[in-house]
């Protein structure tokens, strides 16, 4: 009996700090956040008092706001392009650093290093590259077009978005690469040898042996890059800060304002906390949807195995 009491006591004592932090920073703010998204919550001093329920108003206004629709669209586009580029580059790097070249471990570590640099800081580095280094390189190579101010990647929204993809790929590809490397190293050498004896070309071996063997890694990396791209904020802030401005549905908008930044700006620049919160709820629903799809995909694969 005493042992049982002690066990229960230890259970709650051990769990208490985790529960406390979790309730304080996630559970309560999450509940409040969902509630606020249906109210006229504002940052004025009367916060907490006199909040009125407004139903779906914030959501309806969000979906009528060109800046939100635009952000949603470009975030989707950004996510698709970024997922594709990061994974292609990462897989190519992984194949390269698991091939018969010298200094493989050195390359592995080297390609991984950009992942240690935070998104905010690397955004500044790439802003300098796109605005200063590339024009200067154009001058050195005699390509005048590169130094035209109007031709800079950051000067127009579609290319500025591409610039965020490039910076994001530089940061993330090394991380995704090490996941692919771990998967590639688990492919039994015998399989490759057998295929080689059967006269399979390197390309055939890649398609028939390597790819199926590392397909589980693809599920992991796909979802990691999906969620990571969708949440992009730091590099967006320091590289373009939403600019340049553009027109959408007859309204001036920020040309590279991805969703996370749109949420932030709606709350702090437009001073509409409740609407920013409603957008955050939509943002959460999309991420929850992606994550549910991931769990499903993983379950399905486990059944197959």
């Amino acid at each position: 009996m005493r042992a049982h009491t002690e066990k229960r006591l230890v259970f709650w004592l051990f769990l208490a700090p985790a529960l406390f932090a979790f309730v304080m920073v996630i559970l309560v703010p999450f509940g409040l956040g969902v509630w606020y998204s249906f109210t006229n919550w504002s940052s004025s001093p009367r916060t907490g008092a006199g909040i009125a329920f407004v139903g779906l108003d914030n959501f309806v206004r969000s979906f009528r706001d060109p800046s939100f629709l635009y952000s949603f669209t470009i975030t989707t586009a950004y996510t698709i392009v970024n997922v594709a580029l990061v994974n292609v580059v990462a897989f190519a790097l992984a194949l390269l650093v698991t091939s018969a070249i010298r200094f493989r471990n050195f390359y592995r570590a080297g390609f991984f290093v950009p992942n240690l640099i935070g998104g905010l800081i690397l955004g500044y580095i790439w802003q300098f590259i796109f605005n200063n280094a590339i024009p200067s390189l154009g001058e050195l190579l005699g390509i005048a077009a590169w130094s035209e101010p109007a031709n800079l990647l950051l000067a127009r929204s579609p290319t500025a978005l591409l610039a965020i993809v490039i910076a994001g790929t530089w940061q993330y590809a090394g991380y995704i690469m090490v996941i692919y490397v771990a998967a590639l190293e688990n492919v039994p050498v015998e399989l490759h040898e057998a295929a080689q004896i059967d006269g399979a070309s390197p390309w055939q071996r890649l398609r028939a042996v390597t790819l199926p063997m590392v397909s589980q890694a693809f599920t992991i990396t796909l979802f990691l890059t999906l969620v990571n791209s969708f949440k992009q904020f730091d590099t967006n802030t320091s590289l373009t800060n939403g600019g340049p401005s553009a027109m959408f549905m007859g309204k001036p908008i920020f040309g590279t304002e991805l969703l996370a930044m749109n949420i932030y700006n709606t709350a702090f620049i437009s001073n509409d906390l409740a609407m920013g919160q409603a957008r955050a709820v939509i943002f959460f629903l999309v991420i929850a949807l992606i994550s549910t799809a991931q769990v499903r995909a993983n379950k399905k694969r486990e059944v197959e195995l």
Partner: protein
Amino acid sequence: MNAKRLRALPLEFAAVTLFAVFFAPFVLVLINSAKGAFQITNAPLALPEDWGQLFRNIATIWTSDNIRYGSSFASSVFITAGSLVLIDLVASQAAWALVRTKTRVSSTVFIVFVAAMVVPFQIVMFPLLSWFRKVTELTGVPLLRNYSGIFLAYVGFGMAQSIFMFHGFIKSIPLELEEAATIDGCRRHEIFYRIIFPILKPIHATVLVLNGIWIWNDYLLPVLVLGKGNRVMTLPLAVSNFAGAFVKQWDLIMTAILMAMIPVVIFFLFAQKSIIKGMVAGSIK
């Protein structure tokens, strides 16, 4: 052997080229940290005329009021290290309690933790601020613009994934180990600190690496909880503060970036094996 080397030659070439492309940004940061305002705008690709400028730039950054490098660096180290210790201890304890106590409560709590992994920071960040303000009003404990709030925030956000990883590993530890310890007179809590905690070494590594890289580089949470231009700044906050105040002063911004990057890169050189291993293990979970 020679034929094999020859065949690998195009691959070697590709590797060197890609490596050069990947490292070019770092080289640019380094050479441009050693330039003055004039040379950096005129010749961003040239080697610096005078490397001594690097030290003059570093001195400028060191004494800059916008970046306060010394104290920002110390705050970053303190916040990262403190949060890591707390996350690791609190999460491993909780995970062990959850695995070893089989009740409806424990499995519900675990499911709630796991479900929270999909909660993005964006949905909680605005209410978090007003909630923290409210708690301070009610209890007098300062949470915003203060270390205590940021520690609490990181522990809260670090819980879900860390508990999940510890939970998975603890499940595989045979119960007999703990039963034997009980027979030997080990008290319940001692079993965890003396026996389980040390066995968790590989998971400790993963948890520390994953959370460490995230917290050290995080921008959004500190900018909200600590605020811009606060007495307490982390390095990313300080760099953005500096870049905002010295727009287009690329010579100094580059130096600030260089000084923000160097500590992590040095750390990586010493611990690269466990860092990469930890990142891989964390992704597969």
